[in-house]
């Protein structure tokens, strides 16, 4: 659906990292973890296209976004004021596929790189409500301590949180994917972990490889430049396994894919 969403909050929570709260009752009702909204950051033609943001949280009638200023679109978004309205399409895309209460999954591992925490926060909150018996391990990676996001929020959900920073200013010194390896294999044969990852494509590629080696299911949420956001333009495709391969649309068939179905370049 397409709505005019009122901006309730738009604050810098870390250097160049912003949290935006939008009043969007219909989207809040329908959104599932891993889905995104497609935002027209301003009227006019610069930028021309919408910008996609995954739903970070749903709080009652509101949705929250967590974004980093990376270019013109996010720069303009960061300057939008409380009380203004944004033209929003959503919720769009296929989100994370969740384990049913009866499934054999015993542990959930979330691996977040940078602002990849955005969609995984919503996922952790969703699981803690719908399937509270599952234990959740969250591995958060960032370049430095200043860029770490949501650590406290995950702890408040009773998740076990492990942190990696590339410069070693907090937690493990190195990449989130390396830190993940330290927890594998999990508690012996009886464990059936399910891994969800969101972050830079290099990180997702490494985690996809680890999931193959350790034979556990892994879902990754991809980030791509989108044009239409609804599956029409075919601009955002990634290569997926078929005979021999096919192209899938990140906006419509994803953004969440099984790591095993993708062909990593």
């Amino acid at each position, binding site marked *: 659906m397409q709505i005019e969403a009122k901006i309730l909050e738009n604050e810098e929570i870390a250097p160049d990292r912003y949290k935006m709260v939008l009043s969007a009752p219909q989207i809040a009702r329908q959104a599932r973890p891993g889905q995104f909204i497609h935002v027209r950051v301003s009227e006019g033609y610069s*930028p*021309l296209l919408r910008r996609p943001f995954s739903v970070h949280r749903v709080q009652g009638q509101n949705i929250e976004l967590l974004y980093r200023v990376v270019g013109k679109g996010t720069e303009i978004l960061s300057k939008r004021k409380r009380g203004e309205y944004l033209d929003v*399409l959503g919720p769009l895309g296929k989100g994370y596929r969740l384990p049913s209460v009866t499934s054999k999954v015993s542990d959930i591992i979330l691996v977040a790189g940078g602002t990849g925490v955005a969609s995984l926060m919503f996922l952790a909150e969703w699981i803690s409500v719908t399937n509270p018996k599952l234990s959740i391990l969250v591995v958060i990676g960032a370049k430095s301590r200043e860029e770490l996001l949501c650590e406290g929020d995950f702890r408040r959900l009773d998740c076990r949180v492990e942190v990696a920073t590339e410069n070693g200013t907090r937690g493990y010194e190195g990449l989130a994917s390396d830190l993940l390896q330290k927890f594998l294999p999990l508690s012996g044969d009886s464990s059936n972990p399910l891994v969800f990852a969101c972050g830079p494509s290099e990180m997702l590629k490494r985690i996809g490889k680890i999931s193959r080696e350790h034979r556990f299911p892994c879902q990754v949420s991809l980030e791509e430049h989108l044009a239409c956001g*609804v599956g*029409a333009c*075919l*601009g955002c495709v990634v290569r997926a396994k078929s005979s021999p391969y*096919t192209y899938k649309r990140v906006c419509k068939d994803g953004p969440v894919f099984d790591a095993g179905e993708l062909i990593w370049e």
Partner: protein
Amino acid sequence: MIRKAKEKSPNLAIELAGIPLKNPVMVASGTFGYGEEYADLIDLNRLGAVVTKTITLKPRLGNEPPRIVETASGVLNSIGLQNVGVDAFINEKLPFLRKYDVPLIVSIAGETSDEYVELAKRLRGRKIEGLELNLSCPNIKYDRKLMIAQDAKATHLVVSRVKKVTSVPVIAKLSPNVTDIASVAKVCEEAGADGVSLINTFTGMAIDVENRKPILRQITGGLSGPAIKPIALRMVYEVHKAVGIPIIGIGGIMAARDALEFIIAGAKAIAIGTGNFVDPLTPIKVIDGMREYMIKNKIKDIKSMVGSLKCPKGSL
């Protein structure tokens, strides 16, 4: 009373190459998928017509990504005509579109004139209102290294051969990547085309200066969006002076005023392309905006505006 109300409401209906349209606002090929992608966001019944994503004889995988990049007031794309192929289109896509009360123009492309003919034959008796010949896709090279619409002989051959095997109106989609688009339009008219749509995208490119690599995997792509509107408008103006068949104006239309410019320049209908990506409601806003303009300016019939450009005396 009823008659009075009717008189007040301006008439937006037109006839395009024999196809009756509720209004002159269509959606352009390749920007609207097969309709189903937008069906939840916009009332398809309100559109003048839908032009489908280009269909080829066999399914096409499309180009390797990256396929799309935003540039100043525009978008560069090199999708590579990814599509399900004519058989799957007929079986899986057409039934959905036929549920709506909207004229359907199917865009087709081939690598040879035989393929266009075969496509037109396969679509015979399939409840479609028209065919649009995509002669101008940067991804299909005919014969040498040219698009069909860059070669007068090839253009004539494809249009005249398709005309012989179909009973629905045939519209030729032209490329702006030519020296004289009016002469190509004339060739189409002579070959029997019932209309021309213009323009397709301009070939262009974008480079990442950090690694000195082209951003698109195919190096070049087709430029669309508001960036190309003034050139598209000039081309519609030139073609209108050269041919008698109806013109569908395309190129960066984002609002009613853009659409009106094309109509004044000589387009009988217009199509929204990139504007659909920016705002799915663009076609509806254009229709409503055109109606408002007509009420305000006491224009009873949109047809009276087609080609109504007032050039200063003595200008060519």
